């Protein structure tokens, strides 16, 4: 039996590369077939409904199509929103300035620019909706610019064409051989869960080298951001995922909270070991051991949350007695340090229990009751968005001025293309390469379009002949866009080809118009590239990375001063979003990347401790004098992260010291209130004095020499 099972795999990998190649080609050609099917159905329907420009509907399909159906549906949803908003604005604009072309073009440029800026502030396809809102205002009004009375009909036509394209591509990609994004989400969610559990289990030894910790941190962050991105698209594909959406968000928040506590525990243990307090470190490791044990049932069950959750619950219940026992064994001077660590370990245990329990209920499909509504907040760079607004505005106004002065009949085509591409590439990291690639593809597409329009199409009659004449050149585009080696060329080719073909019923053959239009479109696209030379892209530039790093540090200021309501969620998610944005554009293992990681870890640890501390102050009535000292400590820490310097470090260290002394002084009278504030303060002090963290350059020797090693 077993030999029979094993023999086929032994025989088949004769040409393993061939099998891989075939699998890849199969996926690519399925995508090509789906795109073409959607395009021709759209074209046929548009002609059947006697829409003015079937080409607009086909272009919509070309832009919206994506191998995964969840992506198509998400993109379609935002595209529909953007189209409606854009056409409404176009109408309003036309009714406001039907006679004043200068004011009209100025406002149009401003609107497109603001939309392009808005696009840089959103992730996923919400960004795309903004681009579309700008672009639709242009496609609705520009064709009707010399005949303002026709603008309403023009708007109705464009919106119908775009919505037709959206509906057809959505239906086709969801019905015909769909590739589910949901499977990808489920797979990666399980992978990340398993990785985190394995990592937490594997570190029962206590001390993890900083390097491993940094790598793990990068992975945790990437996982959190990736899961959120996927979730935002999957909800459009799968009603079941939509019903689970709020739970998935909460799960992600718990994941982030648990990973932060995990890091804090290990940094604390590392610091204790480095400063020669091995007895406390050993006690904490012993305290951590039951969690590791709870996470290690028999190997087959190690990644099943339904098994882990009750074990973690039992473990959590057993921790207090273990804490008391371990505390007894330590000398009294070490109690404060031990309490700090013990609090952290218990926090980690309870967060792990919540995390696995929620994951277990998600996998089992128990969705009774409602859960806390949380959001994954993003860290945005508003100045970067402003640069994008400026660039788009300059491109559009330069083109408008040129159009007005020269009286160029095809100026509207050039403006249209500039609108599309300055929006689409506004948030891209290497826009000039992308635009040049697109331009090459676009020009190739137009050449193919010329051949098809003037040699092939005139000979045919009927829709079948139209398909036969246009298909061979059309399928090049979607096929190229499945290749990663030439980003942008495929999309440019498809757009250029479909745009210039301008299929109509009845078809119009006008070589002069064709050439003029082609020139105008290339000029529009080229000018967009020129604009990126003058006002460079900020995404991923060193300038923006430095700004984002400052913003990341400011997160601690936020933790120290923002209202507590929902602050923890906002803090954790914005931290990760910012970190992910910076790290994508940083060279691995460079000095910059090391400093970024050090800061990110330090911000995580300190910010979280500050939030917990403020939570203590809000929950339990600390004595007034203590409350004041703690508040002062929180503020000075905020100042330190806002502007790191040796002086600020000293102030923060002194303030925390004073708060610790104050709290310890009142401990006898109000033990229950002060105890947890004291441990959090102590954690803060220990994090501030960590000479391997980002604080190292600012630590002055005034501090008591606890880091003798």
């Amino acid at each position, binding site marked *: 039996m077993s030999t029979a099972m094993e023999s086929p795999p032994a025989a088949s990998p004769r040409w393993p590369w061939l099998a891989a190649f075939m699998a890849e080609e199969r996926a690519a050609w399925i995508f090509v077939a789906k795109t073409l099917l959607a395009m021709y159905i759209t074209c046929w329907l548009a002609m059947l409904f006697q829409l003015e420009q079937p080409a607009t509907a086909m272009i919509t399909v070309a832009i919206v199509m994506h191998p995964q159906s969840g992506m198509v549906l998400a993109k379609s949803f935002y595209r529909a929103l953007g189209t409606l908003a854009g056409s409404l604005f176009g109408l309003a604009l036309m009714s406001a300035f039907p006679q004043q072309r200068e004011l009209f073009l100025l406002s149009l440029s401003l609107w497109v620019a603001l939309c392009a800026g808005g696009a840089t502030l959103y992730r996923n396809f919400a960004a795309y909706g903004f681009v579309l809102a700008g672009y639709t205002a242009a496609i609705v009004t520009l064709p009707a610019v010399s005949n303002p009375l026709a603008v309403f009909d023009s708007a109705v036509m464009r919106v119908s064409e775009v919505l037709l394209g959206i509906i057809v591509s959505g*239906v086709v990609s969801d019905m015909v051989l769909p590739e589910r994004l949901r499977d990808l989400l489920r797979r990666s969610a399980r992978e990340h869960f398993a990785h985190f559990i394995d990592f937490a289990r594997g570190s029962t030894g206590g001390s993890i080298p900083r390097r491993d910790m940094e790598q793990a941190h990068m992975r945790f962050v990437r996982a959190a951001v990736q899961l959120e991105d996927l979730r935002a698209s999957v909800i459009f594909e799968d*009603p079941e995922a939509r019903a689970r959406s709020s739970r998935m968000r909460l799960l992600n928040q718990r994941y982030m909270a648990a990973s932060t506590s995990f890091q804090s525990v290990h940094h604390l243990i590392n610091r204790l070991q480095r400063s020669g307090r091995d007895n406390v470190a050993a006690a904490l490791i012993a305290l951590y051991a039951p969690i590791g044990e709870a996470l290690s049932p028999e190997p087959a069950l190690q990644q099943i949350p339904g098994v882990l959750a009750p074990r973690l619950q039992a473990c959590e219940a057993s921790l207090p007695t273990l804490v008391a026992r371990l505390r007894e064994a330590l000398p009294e001077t070490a109690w404060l340090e031990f309490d700090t660590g013990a609090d952290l370990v218990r926090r980690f245990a309870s967060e792990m229990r919540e995390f696995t329990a929620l994951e277990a209920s998600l996998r089992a*499909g128990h*969705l009774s009751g409602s859960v806390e509504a949380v959001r994954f907040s993003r860290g945005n760079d508003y100045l970067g968005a402003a640069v994008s607004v400026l660039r788009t505005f300059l491109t559009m106004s330069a083109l408008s001025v040129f159009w007005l002065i020269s009286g160029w009949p095809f100026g509207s085509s050039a403006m249209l293309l500039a609108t599309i591409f300055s929006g689409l590439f506004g948030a891209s990291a290497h826009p000039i390469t992308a635009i040049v690639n697109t331009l090459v593809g676009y020009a190739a597409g137009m050449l193919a379009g010329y051949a098809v329009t003037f040699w092939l199409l005139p000979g045919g009659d009927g829709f079948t002949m139209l398909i036969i004449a246009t298909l061979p050149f059309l399928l090049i585009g979607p096929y190229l866009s499945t290749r990663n080696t030439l980003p942008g060329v495929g999309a440019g080719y498809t757009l250029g080809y479909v745009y210039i073909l301008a299929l109509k019923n009845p078809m119009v053959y006008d070589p002069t118009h064709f050439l003029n239009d082609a020139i105008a479109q290339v000029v529009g696209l080229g000018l967009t590239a020129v604009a990126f030379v003058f006002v460079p892209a900020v995404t991923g530039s060193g300038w923006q990375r430095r700004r984002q790093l400052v913003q990341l540090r400011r997160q601690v200021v936020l933790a120290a001063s923002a209202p507590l309501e929902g602050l923890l969620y906002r803090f954790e998610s914005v931290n990760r979003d910012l970190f992910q944005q910076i790290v994508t554009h940083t060279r691995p293992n460079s000095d910059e990347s090391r400093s970024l990681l050090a800061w990110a870890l330090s911000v995580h640890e300190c910010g979280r401790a500050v939030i917990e501390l403020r939570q203590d102050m809000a929950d339990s009535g600390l004595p007034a004098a203590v409350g004041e000292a703690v508040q002062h400590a929180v503020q000075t820490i905020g100042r330190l992260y806002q502007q790191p310097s040796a002086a600020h470090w000293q102030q923060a260290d002194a303030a925390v010291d004073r708060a610790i002394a104050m709290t310890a002084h009142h401990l006898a009278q109000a033990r229950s209130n002060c105890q947890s504030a004291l441990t959090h303060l102590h954690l803060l002090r220990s994090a501030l004095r960590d000479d391997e963290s980002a604080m190292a350059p600012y630590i002055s020797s005034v501090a008591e020499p606890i880091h003798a090693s």
Partner: protein
Amino acid sequence: MPREIALADALVPGLLLVFVGCLLLLWLVDTIVGRFGLYRFVWHPPLFRLALFVCMFGAAGLLLFH
């Protein structure tokens, strides 16, 4: 139901409103069905949803305009 309805003085086909109404209804059905995970009992959920929508839209259109 009138074939065309004036919304803010723009004539809109009545069928379009029915279409939008059916989309909302489908969204509602999706929410309920997704909540209980009933789509798992269907072979091809998207196809089922499309068919459901066509049924709803067809029925509503025929009832209101026939």
